[in-house]
């Protein structure tokens, strides 16, 4: 493996890592806030991609501009998920029941998309998707650069919201101790509803970039969810920065395996990494919370 190939694998890994971080951020946020696993995350990414597809193909709206419509729509879906279903679960069996409910969401989303678009693969199109920047020996596709920048901005925004605003403080409080947060005047239900909405909204933005870089069909979500879960677990549940770091690390490792060995084995990196890390740090790389209570 040449030095150039290695550098290229690293650059690729960083850029695609940004896209994956954007898709995983919502999962991590919902995980941390609600203590639930959103199996529908993959399907929601694909839904975001199809929303962008409809806007750009049928209405001629630019992909990034279209996010002003798709992200609020996805936000609405998240609010519906929390208000209509998650809120009604008992704390005791929320984890297991949430898997069932979000799975039902996933298959309904897949069913609607299949009904509307069929099972053929679609791709997003825009002038910047096939152009690239040439630096030294490397070609950097514009869409990856834009996607990476957007990931950094959005995740930075989430970070600020989480740690620098009153809403974020309430969120973290209700995450640590629901009853105590209630007592000091945090509207826990509203906070959680908004947090899930924001998580799903960001996923919509991730879906647009995913659709612009990869061909997708209604059942592409299942491929994604396992990788996204790996990223979130490795980064530590509820940690946005952890999601970013672990996404970049995993994608670099996967790219190097793909270049040095064989692309078919690169997926193994995700799962081998989880096993390795969790054997030594059950709370993930950046997770602070103990997970030893069953």
């Amino acid at each position: 493996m040449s030095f150039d190939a290695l550098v290229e694998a690293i650059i690729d890994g960083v850029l695609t890592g940004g896209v994956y971080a954007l898709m995983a951020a919502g999962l991590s946020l919902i995980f941390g806030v609600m203590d639930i696993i959103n199996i529908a995350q993959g399907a929601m990414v694909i839904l975001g991609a199809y929303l962008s597809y409809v806007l750009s193909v049928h209405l001629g709206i630019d992909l990034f501009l279209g996010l002003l419509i798709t992200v609020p729509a996805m936000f609405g879906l998240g609010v519906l998920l929390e208000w209509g279903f998650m809120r009604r679960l008992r704390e005791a069996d929320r984890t297991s029941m949430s898997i069932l409910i979000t799975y039902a969401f996933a298959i309904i989303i897949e069913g609607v998309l299949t009904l509307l678009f069929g099972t053929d693969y679609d791709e997003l199109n825009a002038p910047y998707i096939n152009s690239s920047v040439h630096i030294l020996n490397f070609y950097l596709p514009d869409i990856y650069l834009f996607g990476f920048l957007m990931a950094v901005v959005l995740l930075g925004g989430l970070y600020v919201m989480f740690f620098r605003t009153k809403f974020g403080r309430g969120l973290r409080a209700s995450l640590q101790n629901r009853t105590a947060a209630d007592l000091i005047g945090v509207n826990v239900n509203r906070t959680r509803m908004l947090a899930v909405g924001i998580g799903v909204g960001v996923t919509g933005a991730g879906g647009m970039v995913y659709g612009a870089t990869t061909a997708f069909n209604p059942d592409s979500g299942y491929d994604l969810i396992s990788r996204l879960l790996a990223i979130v677990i490795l980064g530590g549940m509820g940690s946005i920065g952890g999601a970013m770091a672990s996404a970049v690390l995993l994608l670099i490792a996967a790219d190097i395996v793909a270049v040095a060995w064989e692309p078919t084995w690169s997926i193994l990196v995700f799962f081998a990494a989880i096993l390795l890390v969790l054997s030594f740090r059950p709370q993930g790389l950046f997770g602070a919370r103990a997970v030893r209570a069953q």
Partner: protein
Amino acid sequence: MSEQPGTDPATAPGARPHAQPATRRRVLALLPAVVALAVAALFPLGANSNQGDMSIAVFVLIYMASVSAWNIFSGYSGYLALGHAVFFGSGAYAIALMARDWHVPAGWSTVALLPLCGVVAGLIAIPVGLVALRTRRHTFVVVTIAIFFIFQTLATNLAFTGGTGGIQLPYLSWLVSVYNERFYYIALVLVVLTVALSWAVRRSRFGLQLMAIRDDEDRARGMGVRTLRVKLSAFVLSAIPVGIAGGIYAYFLGSIYPAGSGSAFDPLFDIALALMGFLGGIGTISGPLLGALVLEALQEKLTQTFSTDGLYLIIYGALFLVVILLMPRGIVPTVAGRLRQWREQRSGRTPEPAAGVAGVAR
């Protein structure tokens, strides 16, 4: 059937003096099981003309056995395992590889390999369990998913598994008219054995230890339960029937693939077990059977009726949401709770509305 843990009157210490009614009650409680088995055994006579329904019935039985086995671990211990397709796939590959490499002739001699599929699955479950059971809660769920994908990747990429093309099993020359029926009875035997195993575990000290872990693992350990050993034993026990079910599945289909829908390593299988278990009522004996019967039959029928245009997914998902919202505990515990409430009301006692249902849950 009264099968809630800890509520069986026959085993309660105070039941001794009333041994006579307790025995009668136990025999009565067995009645639905006997009726269900009789119906299952006679089903092919009624449906023999319709091979489509017969093949659905075989799939239903394969799922019934798998969910019952999954329930032995996940239902009793409370650990949500989403990677049992590892054992299903291993069993499927085991029978295909054994038949290919040992040149076993098609027919009953290949069927005789099925117990070995269980052994393979059980052996694989030991290291998998040792790794996964280090973690709890969400992390355990995700670790089992991760291990599943590792196995799927291995099955796709290793040389001896035939890659993405999979493996053909020896051609089975059974006539169409008996093909489905024979597989039906093979699968039915597995279901009966698995349910018996599940029942035996539930009645045993070992089962109590598992349920103690489900209620509070740290306290159970404090009381002297060797938690890792108990959890691992249950994990291995629950893997064995799933491996055999995978073997039946592979031989029934005649060929196996490592990935894709209907393949040996299908992530939807992982989810399906959990869905069926929760729908019927996790931790009960009849719940998983009912869940598998309802969901698998419904899904196959919907797929047949609406083909692949996505409508069946929407119906399936929506029905599923409705059931979860109406019966969050699953069908069997909810119905059992209602029945008990109704009986108590009839006998003149006024039960506390919440306690009647809550007493059933655990």
